[in-house]
């Protein structure tokens, strides 16, 4: 189960795990309906698909992986069939996967906002990092009275804060 301690930005973000520089490739933020609220890339040499297809594919992949993790969970009693939509926090959810060329870290909030961070494969557990980015989201986006939930985020301060923080990972 996930829990989030404190609602203000913690004074000391998680310490950097590897050398400074471009560790992160890109970040996606989706809401529960699959709308891509934010996509930023810092280091992406290869673009396979156009942005819309890329976002849809990413969202679909995560939905399926969550469903797979819930089904394959060895600690719970037999759950429903594959493909049954899971509520955020219900059942076992994966938090990262690694390939030989990248590592994808995933976090879903109780409100259904999904944070995805794609980094190089040698980074360690990034759950605290994602929680920090969620706190940034709360401060700059959720608390912004001019922001309409469900629309892409257009807040320069948020973008700058995210860029700055991610460069220090």
């Amino acid at each position, binding site marked *: 189960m996930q829990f989030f301690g404190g609602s203000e930005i913690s004074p000391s973000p998680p310490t950097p795990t590897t050398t400074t520089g471009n560790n992160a490739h890109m970040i996606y933020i989706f809401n529960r309906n699959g709308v891509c609220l934010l996509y930023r890339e810092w280091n992406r040499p290869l673009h396979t698909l156009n942005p819309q297809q890329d976002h849809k594919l990413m969202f679909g992949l995560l939905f399926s992986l969550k469903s797979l993790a819930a*089904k394959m969970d060895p600690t719970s009693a037999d759950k429903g069939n594959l493909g049954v939509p899971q509520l955020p926090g219900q059942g076992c959810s994966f938090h990262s996967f690694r390939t030989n*060329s990248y590592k994808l870290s995933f976090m879903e909030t109780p409100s259904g906002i999904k944070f995805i961070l794609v980094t190089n494969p040698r980074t360690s557990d990034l759950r605290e990092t994602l929680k920090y980015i969620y706190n940034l989201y709360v401060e700059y986006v959720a608390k912004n009275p001019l922001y309409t939930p469900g629309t892409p985020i257009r807040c320069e301060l948020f973008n700058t804060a995210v860029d700055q923080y991610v460069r220090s990972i």
Partner: protein
Amino acid sequence: MDTNDSLRVASLWHSMHAISQQLSPTTGCSGIELLEADTFDLHCFQSLTVCEPGTQHMEALLKVVYELYTDYVLKNPFYEMEMPIRCELFDINLTQAVQKDRVALLGR
């Protein structure tokens, strides 16, 4: 999980393996190697000819499983590719290897 579920999970895994290669930010991605969840980790060992979604154990055990697979399944003249594996000796040896690994893990 019955056979149908296993087939569904296997096909789902195969597709996601391919999609993860498409979404890679750099070239030369060979698919998901490790999936970490709250209560388990899933390792995937990919041989040169066939993709084997792994069990919830470590890489050494997966290599042992692959060896068993080559010995009992691929060398079996009655085995047809892509069909479910129904070989008692393979099952027995597989359970033995898993037990040994579990004992070794507890012993450490």
